């Protein structure tokens, strides 16, 4: 996918660019507001990652101009302003999603996927990987042909992992998906569910399917 990143911080910009490239996205990184607006107006991108406190022009005003010209490219706002009212302001200004710094690359990738999917595709009825199959309508899961009984929480976690098969899914993403907002306490409320899920999946597959990625989260083996 072609993604435009408008971010003035050199370290964050570079990291985002590298992260996007490694996730096989083409990335244009612009460090100033007016230049970013030019890029967004002259070239077609599939998503825009927009910082708010930019030199030359505030992200919100840039977003307003963009939407004013009828450009509907999904925009993910990236900012250090993290209060609830800031988020609401961002979304009402026409942003599709809002990510508060410091953020995790895995989450940015997942959100880019999500806004692009929201913009184009219809939701799938079932999810498939090499060994797993998950039916969203009947809420049935089978692993290597064996049907597996999952609790609603485990089902949601597996669904999330399968949607991002091969990618890192962070604890925060799982938490927000399950219980609306992240839990930042020291108790790892996801870990227990992941462990149970692993035990249940072992019935159908000899290989461990869910990997723990230290300090980042979990990933479902893609193949």
């Amino acid at each position, binding site marked *: 996918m072609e993604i435009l990143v408008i971010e003035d911080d050199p370290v964050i910009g570079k990291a985002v660019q590298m992260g996007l490239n490694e996730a096989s996205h083409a990335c244009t990184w612009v460090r100033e507001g007016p230049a970013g607006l030019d890029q967004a107006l002259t070239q077609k991108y599939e998503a825009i990652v927009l910082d708010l406190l930019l030199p030359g022009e505030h992200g919100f005003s840039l977003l307003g101009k963009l939407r004013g010209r009828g450009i509907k490219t999904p925009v993910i706002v990236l900012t250090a302003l*993290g*209060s*609830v*009212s800031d988020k609401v302001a961002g979304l009402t200004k026409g942003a599709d999603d809002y990510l508060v710094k*410091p953020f995790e690359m895995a989450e940015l990738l997942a959100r880019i996927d999500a806004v692009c999917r929201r913009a184009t595709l219809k939701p799938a009825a079932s999810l498939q990987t090499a060994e797993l199959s998950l039916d969203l309508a009947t809420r049935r899961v089978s692993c290597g042909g064996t049907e597996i009984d999952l*609790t*609603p*929480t*485990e089902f949601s976690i597996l669904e999330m992992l399968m949607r991002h098969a091969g990618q890192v899914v962070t604890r925060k993403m799982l938490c927000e998906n*399950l*219980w*609306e*907002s992240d*839990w*930042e*306490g*020291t*108790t*790892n*409320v996801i870990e*227990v*569910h992941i462990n*149970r899920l692993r035990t249940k999946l072992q019935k159908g597959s000899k290989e461990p399917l869910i990997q723990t*990625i*230290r*300090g*980042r989260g979990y990933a479902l083996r893609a193949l």
Partner: protein
Amino acid sequence: MLSERFKNLLATIRFRLVLWMIVVVFVLVAVAMFGVRQLYRARLLSDFDRGLRGDIEPVAKEIRDGFPDWGRIEQNLTKIALAHPVQAWFAEVYDDAGKKLAAGGFRDFQPPLRAFARSESPQPHDLLPYRLIVARLEEPNLPPLYLRIGGNRQSLEDDLRLLDRTMMARSLAILLLAPLGGYILALRATRPIAKIIATAARLEPSRLQERLPIRGTGDELDQLSQTINGMLDRIADYIDSNREFVANAAHELRSPLTAIRSSVEVALNRQRSPEEYGTLLGEVMEECQYLSNLVNRLLILAEGDAGRLGARRQTARLDKIVHESLDMFGAVAELHEVRLQAGALPEALVPGDEFHLRQVVRNLLDNAIKFSPPQGGTVTVLLRTDPARRRAVLTIQDQGAGIAPADLPHIFERFFRGDKARQRHPGRHSSGLGLSICQTIVQALEGAITVGSRVGQGSTFTVVLPLAVEQPLASAAPPDPAASVA
């Protein structure tokens, strides 16, 4: 600027006090003087009139004695007139038909006919500059007669004018002295205010030790000084606690930063295998996560301090949040062999946003599980609504070691960490902010959080929140069945 200074002077209390004093004194003096003058005038007139009435009898006597010799009567009347203290005194006698029979005293007086009223109850009246009285004289051996007695009231007017002049002079003196006195009084009254202004102007946020002097008079200005001093005490306390908070926060941030630094230093020390790098970077990542969690927690507290937590007009279903949190911690509790027991969750719509209410419930639940004894125990969660008192009460009770009585008053303080030995998992990453965040949020929503604890028996946290005023029908649906306890 001169005009600016003049404007400022006009705006001072002192100036306005003086101005008001002049106006009030002027009005009071005018009213008082006018009253005195009217009183004095009435008194003079009544004296004059009494004199005229008193003259009726002597005149009648002369007529009785001299009748019908009008010439003699006239002579005697003139004698009376000469001896009379009233200026231009005169007495005239008329018969029933209005014909003048005799006259004595001042003769230039030519009263019009209508003044010759036949009145049964004679009242003195004015024919300026004269004042006169008409009386009917009815005696057995005399024909019906009318007496007209009067005199010039100029002396009365002269007296009044003298009084007016005296009073004018006094009033003028008072009016000239009043502003001066007023100015002195106003100066005395406002001097403490000037002192307050000067002291307040000297205060700096970095230097708030100075207090306004209390003069001990107990007047309004003393009360004002006391109020300001009280306010200064509170501000100083607030600034102190803020300073302490910032210092503590910096200290807390230092430990993950140190950890990150050490990991990175170790990584950079020499060439390592990719696995080793991975491990070290994973450690760095974990510390970063802790760091951002800490910052997020500090931000919630900062928002609370700025009074921005309760400002939004939102409502949330507390029962749903409790339900959801039970689901969240269900598996963890099971893992630690803690029985998570919840009563019925009645619908409870409370003001506040879900994000912050979740923080409260989750932190309390997390603590309850964390502090449960190693062999398990029960955590009891109860939610009840009290519609009569318009409040929802949430209690979370554990069977842990309890909180030492010495620690109990401090557990809601920021960065307070109790005895770590009680904790089942004394993780390095306990920020000591959980309960103070709970308190900040609950208080911002105009609720209250309390704790009861017995060492060896466990602790009970109680959160009381006001119920939202309106219960929208849309939210009356039962909690999502998909989110049932795992």
